[in-house]
Each structure stands twice: as C-alpha cells, then as structure tokens.
C-alpha cells in the first residue's frame, strides 16, 4: 500500500470541461465522488448492480458513438465485473474510457481489503484482455497522462488511480432510478450536437 492519491481531486480533473462527456459511476465512493463535482444530468450513478458499471458504460458508448463515455468506478466494483473486461476488450468502443479509483478496499462495508491489495493488477488484466491502452497512476506525476488517457485516448482504455484509503464526506445523488434514467436520456437527446468522440 502506497500513500495514495486524492480521489476527489482526481475525479474533479476527470470531469473538468465536460461538454460531450457522459459519466457512469460505480456504486459507493465513486458515485459520491462524481456527485461531489456536480449532480449533473449527464451522470448515471449506480446505487446497486455491483459489477455492472463498465458494461453500462459500454452500452451507452455503443448507443452514442458521438459522445465520450467515462466509467468511474472502484476496485471492488470492477473486480466483481472482472469478466466484463474480457468482453469490453473484444469489442470496438473507441469512445469508452474506464477510470478505476483503487483504494484496495471495500469502502462501503468497513474498509475490508480487496484482492488488488494482494496483487491483482486491474490495468494488467485489461491489457491482457485487449484494451487499446492501460496505465496505473501512482503519483501526481502520472495524473496528466492518466486523465488524458481516460478522457480522450481511443478506447477501450482503462486507467487505475491508486488512491488513499480515506473517506471523504458522502455527497449522494438522487436515489430514484427512474429519475436518473429519464434525466440522462433527455440530456443525451437534447445535447446531441454537443457530443464529440
């Protein structure tokens, strides 16, 4: 375990200047992180469906190739959907980026260790599954490259950010799934011209 990057600061950088960016957030801390930047109609934060964030992102990316789609999720969430990295690596999805905020912990249930704490390297897994580019950011010097890869390099790409195991204040998005879906769909449809790959 290293000292760890600041998850909120990284999320703010990932979502900066976000015209043309749709965001899917994995349940728990990544959903709070994304909402702390802004409770934006173009976010789909999950309150469940653990292991599904990356595939939700793939679905959006396939349906809306003119938008960049960024999945922001945690190590525990991505580990539960580990096989989806194989699936995503097999498809053409140039507009899909995945950012894993990896604190090596299950943050919502008491900070129990995940298997990234004992050696599972999610960037290496994604690389072996055929992702176009992957990297692991462990220091501030890696952030520019990591953010740029997640936001704009031809996908599918996956960037692991090794973040501190701290617990920033919860900033929760709406819980009503139907509302989250409706506002996202309206935002996608009404802002179609603003999207770019």
């Amino acid at each position, binding site marked *: 375990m290293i000292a760890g990057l600041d998850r909120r600061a990284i999320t703010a950088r990932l979502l900066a200047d976000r015209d043309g960016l749709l965001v899917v957030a994995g349940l728990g801390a990544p959903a709070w992180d994304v909402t702390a930047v802004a409770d934006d109609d173009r976010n789909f934060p999950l309150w469940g*469906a653990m292991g599904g964030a990356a*595939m939700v*992102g*793939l679905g959006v*990316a396939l349906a809306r190739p003119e938008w960049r789609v960024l999945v922001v999720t945690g190590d525990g969430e991505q580990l539960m959907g580990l096989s989806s990295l194989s699936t995503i690596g097999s498809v053409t999805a140039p507009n899909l980026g995945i950012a894993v905020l990896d604190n090596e912990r299950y943050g919502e249930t008491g900070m129990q260790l995940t298997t990234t704490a004992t050696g599972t390297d999610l960037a290496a897994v994604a690389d072996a599954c055929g992702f176009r580019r992957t990297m692991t950011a462990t220091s501030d010097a890696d952030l520019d490259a990591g953010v740029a890869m997640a936001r704009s390099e031809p996908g599918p790409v996956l960037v692991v950010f090794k973040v501190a195991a701290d617990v920033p204040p919860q900033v929760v998005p709406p819980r009503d799934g139907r509302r989250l879906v409706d506002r996202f769909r309206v935002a996608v449809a009404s802002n179609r011209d603003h999207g770019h790959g």
Partner: protein
Amino acid sequence: MVGPVTAAQTTIEREPPWVGPTHRALGDGGITVVGHVPDGGLRHLIAGLEADHRITTVRLSSEQEGVALAAGVFLGGGRAALLMQSSGVGNCINMLGMLETCRIPALLLVTMRGQAGEANPWQVPMGRAAADTLRLMGVAVRSVGSAEEVAVAVTGACADAFDGGGPAAAVLVEQRVIGVKTFAGDGR
C-alpha cells in the same frame, strides 16, 4: 486459434424455421445491440445476427454483463436484446434488480434446458426455476412451445417492453422447440 467443429456442436445441422422470422422480429422491433452467451439452440440465430451489419453483437463472458449492457444502451436511447440459455438466467438475478428499480426495458430471449428429454441432470434445477426467477425479479415472461410462436412472441415482448413502458420482457423458447442435446453413450 479456433479448432475444427466437433460433433457435439453440429447436432443441429439446418437452420430451424423460427430463426429467420425471429431475426427479422428483432430488427423490426428496433433492436440495435445484441449481447449473447451461446446455446446450441441459439447458434444459428447468433450467427445470423453477427452477420447483420445493422446490429452490433457483443460476446458476453457472463450473462449478467448483458443486463448492464442493455441498461446502458437504453440510457443512450437504443434498444438491446440478450440471448442466453436458461442456466444463464440464474447468473443475472441481482443485475435484473437495476432494470426493475430504474424501469429500464430490455428483451431477453432464453432457450430452455432441463425440460422434456434433457440428458444432463445438472441443467434441470435452473431450467425449472428460470421462469419464476425472472418473474420474481420483475421481468414479464412469455413461454413458447412451438416454432411458429417464437417470432410473434418476440414482437409482442418488444412492444410491451420498449413501446409500452413496461418492464423487461423475456421470451422462453421451450426445449421441445430447440431439441435435445445428446452426449456420448446416450441410448445405450
């Protein structure tokens, strides 16, 4: 990398009569993304869909991925269908909760194992439980027992799910339509 086709994969040689109309029903229903985990009974349909340039097919590593995929496609304004064997329904359970909570429509086409004539007893429990499992998770279920009904059921399920604001809809194709998989030594 892909070896020769073995005997077990060629049990069903000719395209069954329900496949073409079902493919057309999916297209007419506005389906543009299809996620699938193969089943012997689905192989002609999957091959046809993969050759259809109007449809993006995704080879799922596990069926639950498809539920999340379908949710994302709907968020983006599209319509997705998932193809799987009855055993795969069990892999989807928790993810199906998202479709109900968020009222996200999707079409599931499930080929049944574990029914009449099944030669693998390990297929029986999930085959028996598939329809009830889907209903418990909020999915509307249509079970079809003849080849002529499959495409009609797909059309109806698409309309209910995507046009009617309904929940996800599943069409279960019974094993008597698909046929029975045989194993070495069967019939001795």
